[in-house]
């Protein structure tokens, strides 16, 4: 609550009360005579409010959300294509898809990010956000592919037969009948994959992308508070993922409409 109030006051340009309070408390923090609550509030002031640092968190959060959202989009589209390729009876489709999935899942995301950044895009000047989206998207696609493949295989064979017996071709049957059911089945795991993705984008700090984790790290380097900035960004991750989980729960309930007996 204190943070929210402080933010509101800061935004309104009315920080005099806080500033006065800080001027009174900071000497006590220096000589170690501050009490418990003064220490806590002092930490929050230095790591969130001072010098408009809350803006750093918000910008970092914005980058994290942008990269995660776009990478998830790449992941779901490419992952679906990979799943369909891997299930194909044509070896020149299924083999490369299988190899790609295996390769991506067998190497660390961080290494993939470094290879794409310093290897593939070494000599070109590309926005770090785009590099992050490509790296995380290509990585996520491998996991999404396996989730979708599992979903497709869980759909009863009779569904395909019913579609084909009506004269629909293989692709129409897949697109209109099998995939919608497969994605519904895979939705909880896809949601989980997206949650993982939001947090894993933090490795992009290695290529100097200022996401939420990097922002916290930067603030620590300025304030020298041992962990306050990290806690703040952790709370922001928690908030975002809580909201996302709620939304997915709503979506799942809507999709379950057809299961009512």
């Amino acid at each position, binding site marked *: 609550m204190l943070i929210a109030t402080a933010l509101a006051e800061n935004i309104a340009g009315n920080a005099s009360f806080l500033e006065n309070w800080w001027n009174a408390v900071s000497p006590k923090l220096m000589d170690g005579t501050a009490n418990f609550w003064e220490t806590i509030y002092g930490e929050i002031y230095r790591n969130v409010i001072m010098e408009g640092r809350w803006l750093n968190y918000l910008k970092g959060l914005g980058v994290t959300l942008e990269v995660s959202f776009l990478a998830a989009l790449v992941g779901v589209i490419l992952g679906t294509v990979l799943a369909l390729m891997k299930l194909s009876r044509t070896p020149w489709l299924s083999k490369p898809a299988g190899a790609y999935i295996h390769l991506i899942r067998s190497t660390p995301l961080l290494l993939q990010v470094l290879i794409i950044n310093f290897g593939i895009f070494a000599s070109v000047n590309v926005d770090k956000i785009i590099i992050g989206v490509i790296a995380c998207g290509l990585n996520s696609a491998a996991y999404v592919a396996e989730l979708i493949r599992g979903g497709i295989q869980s759909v*009863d064979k*009779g*569904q395909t*037969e*019913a*579609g*084909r*017996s*009506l*004269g*629909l*071709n293989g692709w*129409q049957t897949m697109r*209109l*009948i099998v995939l*919608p*059911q497969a994605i*519904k089945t895979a939705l909880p795991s896809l949601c989980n994959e997206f949650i993982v993705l939001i947090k894993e984008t933090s490795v992009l700090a290695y290529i100097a992308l200022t996401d939420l984790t990097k922002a916290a790290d930067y603030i620590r380097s300025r304030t020298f508070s041992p962990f306050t900035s990290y806690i703040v960004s952790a709370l922001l991750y928690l908030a975002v993922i809580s909201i996302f989980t709620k939304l997915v729960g709503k979506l799942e309930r809507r999709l379950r*409409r*057809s*299961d*009512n*007996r």
Partner: protein
Amino acid sequence: MITVEKLEKHFGKLHVLRGVDQHISQGEKVVVIGPSGSGKTTFLRCLNLLERPTGGRILFEGVDITDPKCDINRIRRKMGMVFQQFNLFPHLNILKNITLAPVQLKLMSQQEAEENAMRLLKRVGLSEKATVFPRQLSGGQQQRIAIVRALAMNPDVMLFDEPTSALDPEMVGEVLDVMKQLAEDGMTMVVVTHEMGFAREVGDRVLFMDEGLVVEEGTPAEIFEHPQQQRTRDFLQKVLK
């Protein structure tokens, strides 16, 4: 309408159909009976190529559908199929289940397809179920919808694969009634079933299959009253008791 010549099907080493020759005429109701594992379901599934035969030919309205160059999707529009497990699409409501194929295949506009669906639903007494989802219906209702879904394509022949075997006994009648009505309307039908009463009442011709062959065929009277083969007599004795 359908001519089957020397039809064979292997599943690996298993020889399921060992050369079946049949001719099914327009408007004929052919009922296929036989013990489980006799190949009768495989025979039916070969007719619309859900199973690809490993030998022999199938001619449908003069076209060799076993020819790899034949566009089977186009042929299947004219062959409705009803499955033992109904296989309605659980993520679509009843109306969408019925209109999906005709609309996607551009045979009808959405509105035409819906009008046609409502007319057919009325015929099977389920017009008030148009907007519900398949799992909200009983097995008998689902199977009647499945029949309607196949009929919505205006097929020339209807294939039934044990349509009442997955139903609770009290629901068998409502499905058989729809099938009888269909037979009276002159539909060409091939029915794999264990319902001997239905075979006797509706069938023009009964095929008794065993071990991948049609062992005996004839009118219901011939098969049920005067079976010639020992295997037919054994089977009928077991199922009719």
